[in-house]
């Protein structure tokens, strides 16, 4: 496998890892008004993602950084074409991040509920916006031979972007619900289960549709099999959540994303920005890549760095593995109060 292909795979892994991890904290944040009837329930939901969301978000920074580092031609085409949508995503991520920290820096009912709403709004904007950007870059953008946008500021926001947005939102909502069912106890757990049961098959359809379209455009037999794996995992996840097997449902729902993302990137390869104007204008990994020397340097750095990162991030998940409950725990005054 040549270095460009290796780095295409690395970028695909980073984006998938981002969606898999930040997907559940996007989902939990979006579900705050739906599942968190009582203030205590909302606080429990926030506690479940509190120690994790920032580490998850670094996957986005790393994924975008890797696109810039390995395929600057992709980065420099993709971002300006979707200039305003990306700015909106940044806006969502900014307000969400400060809301997480500032929410509990002042204690009044209004302050708390206002920032909780900001977390939900910011997460919805970011999830939809990133989905739109990924949908557009895998299904097609209106670019000319130089990679410049044909049309006005919103020309990049066609149906591919819409499909990507709905797909990421749908996936994240159920992902967040299953995560809450797995991670919490009490009324939130029950409500999350019910939500996941109701929406689990339907919410995956846009994602399967997106992957299916890329598969139909340029898929291979192998990516077709991956798509089938994703589709099968939807069935398994829905079945397992119906019998309250939360761990299995969470794993299966993760496989839905893994299969769909593998299909999207695998079938798309080696094109990174398909042009809706003329296939001759497609940006491929060969057009977009940096030199082999730089890719080699990064391969070494990532080869050493990534396992370490995965190790300590997994350890954090292990440290915070305990199921959380909104009810105060008796005889445990030393229990950290993290909400």
């Amino acid at each position, binding site marked *: 496998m040549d270095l460009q292909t290796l780095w295409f795979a690395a970028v695909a892994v980073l984006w998938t890892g981002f969606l898999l991890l930040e997907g559940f904290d996007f989902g939990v944040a979006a579900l705050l008004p739906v599942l968190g009837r009582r203030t205590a329930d909302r606080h429990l939901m926030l506690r479940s993602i509190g120690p994790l969301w920032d580490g998850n978000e670094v996957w986005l920074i790393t994924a975008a950084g890797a696109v810039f580092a390995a395929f600057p031609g992709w980065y420099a085409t993709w971002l300006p074409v979707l200039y305003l949508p990306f700015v909106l995503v940044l806006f969502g991520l900014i307000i969400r991040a400060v809301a997480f920290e500032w929410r509990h820096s002042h*204690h009044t009912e209004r302050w708390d509920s206002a920032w909780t709403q900001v977390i939900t709004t910011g997460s919805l904007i970011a999830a939809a916006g990133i989905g739109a950007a990924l949908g557009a870059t895998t299904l097609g953008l209106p670019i000319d031979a130089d990679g410049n946008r044909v049309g006005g500021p919103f020309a990049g926001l066609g149906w591919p972007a819409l499909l990507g947005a709905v797909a990421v939102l749908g996936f994240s909502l159920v992902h967040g619900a299953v995560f809450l069912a797995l991670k919490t106890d009490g009324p939130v757990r029950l409500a999350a289960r019910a939500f996941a049961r109701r929406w689990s098959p339907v919410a995956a359809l846009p994602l399967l549709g997106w992957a299916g379209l890329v598969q139909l455009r340029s898929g291979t037999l192998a990516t077709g099999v991956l798509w089938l794996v994703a589709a099968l995992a939807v069935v398994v996840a829905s079945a397992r959540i119906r019998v309250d097997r939360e761990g299995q449902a969470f794993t299966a729902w993760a496989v839905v994303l893994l299969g769909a993302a593998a299909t999207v990137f695998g079938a798309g390869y080696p094109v990174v920005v398909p042009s809706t104007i003329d296939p001759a204008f497609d940006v491929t990994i060969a057009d977009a890549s940096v030199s082999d020397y730089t890719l080699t340097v990064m391969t070494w750095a990532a080869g050493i760095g990534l396992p370490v990162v995965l190790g300590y991030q997994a350890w954090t998940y292990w440290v915070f593995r305990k199921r959380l409950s909104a009810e105060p725990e008796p005889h445990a005054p030393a229990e950290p109060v993290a909400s």
Partner: protein
Amino acid sequence: MDVLDIARWQFGITTVYHFLMVPLTLGLGVLVAVMHTMWVRTDKPEWLRMTRFWGRIYLINFVLGVATGLVQEFQFGLAWSEYSRFVCDVFGSLLALEALLAFFLESTFLGLWIFGWGRIPKKVHLASLWAAVLGSVVSAYFIIAANSWMQHPVGVVTDDATGRPLQVDFLAVLTNNTALAAFSHAIVAALMVAGALLVGIGLWHLRKRELAGAATTDVDHAVWRRSVRLGGVVSLAAFVLVALTGDLQGKLMYEQQPLKMSSAEALCETEAPAPFSLFAFGKLGSNECDDVHSWTIPYLLSYLAHGDFSTAVPGVDELQQEYAAVYGATYPDDPSFGDKAGEPIDYTPVLAVTYWGFRLMIGMGLTSAAVAAYALWSTRTVRVPTSRVGVHGSLLAVAAPFVANAAGWVFTEMGRQPFVVYPNPDVAVGEQVYFFTAQAVSPGITAAEVWTSLIALTAVYGALAVVELWLIVRFVRRGVPTRDGAPTPGPTPDGTPDADLPGGRDATDDVLSFAY
């Protein structure tokens, strides 16, 4: 304004704003880790309270730095796509490595620190804070290495096919002497920011308590006293290092970007020995160097530039002609230069900005050092300062090192204009890698789009600044929670004890609930 100007304003505003958070994160992170270490080692309650109090401010500030840092990574692609394409072989990989090797460390371990009180062993918990701080420092190194490569491109050759730099020596990029000098300067400058904060707030609380007749034997007194002493010592030591590293950086800059330094001095004609300008008057704003006159200290500039009192320092007028001869008197008549195509090139940066930016940086640094000296003097032995002017002045002077940091960066970045990647003088003319700012902007975007994002980001940033300041001021006024005779707080809406209100809980409980 055209897209280029709007995009430059956007980059300037978002970057300077981001860099208000960054030095505080860097400096305060180190100091909070020191406090936490002292608590683990000595078990003294004041260190715990200090960790708690300053840690809170650290976190409120940290998150805004993270949030505004996101914009930084994306705007290279959004508004500066031609720049991104040009520097891609070097610049992008540094950003990616920063994310992989630094941001993960920072955010993961900070999460562990915030939520780990009581859950993980005490020493592992402390180590997680140090790991997060290390992450911040490493990230500073990578981003400064990336910036320094723009100031002084090393480790590359020109790719004949594309005309772009091709990386041949990654180690040279990482050990760029510009980067080493700038990094050490930035890190000690960050410590000055944190030191000034400790001094200003600590003195204010000491004086307030003294006037109210509070005891000088309790833990709270120890908290503020130690904060002032620690902040003062760190500030002064950091100031010495700032001066030394700054001198080093200045000498390098005279070799690498003589125009930037001569503009910082408004030195028009080459002079040997060259004087240092104390105060310039005349029409600095006209950017015509000959309209400017200054009060000067003879010989000093020769020393600052070259380490002796006689060597000639080249003047702006001469350098302008030199650069025009080598890099062209006008921009090429090429559409990639936009409105600037065929226009004459002004190699002299905006004099008013470089000249006063440089002086503002130094002046604010000196102010901060003077305040630190005052703080140490006024709290010697067991003294507590009650001077209104002194203490309130110190509180006001918390802003000084922030301004100094911002002014230093504005000077450094605007001083490199009209280049975005400055030609490296060590490389033979003709083989140099360089790029004009005028060709760096994204060609496909409209002025309306950049206006929209500029206005939106500025408005959001402004609003966030108001909230952040309000939160910090409010938190600082309340001081460290005490257990002595304070009313018992009511429960927060979720029924958990309030982390920030004083209450009758023991110290362990205090710290644990500090977690959120």
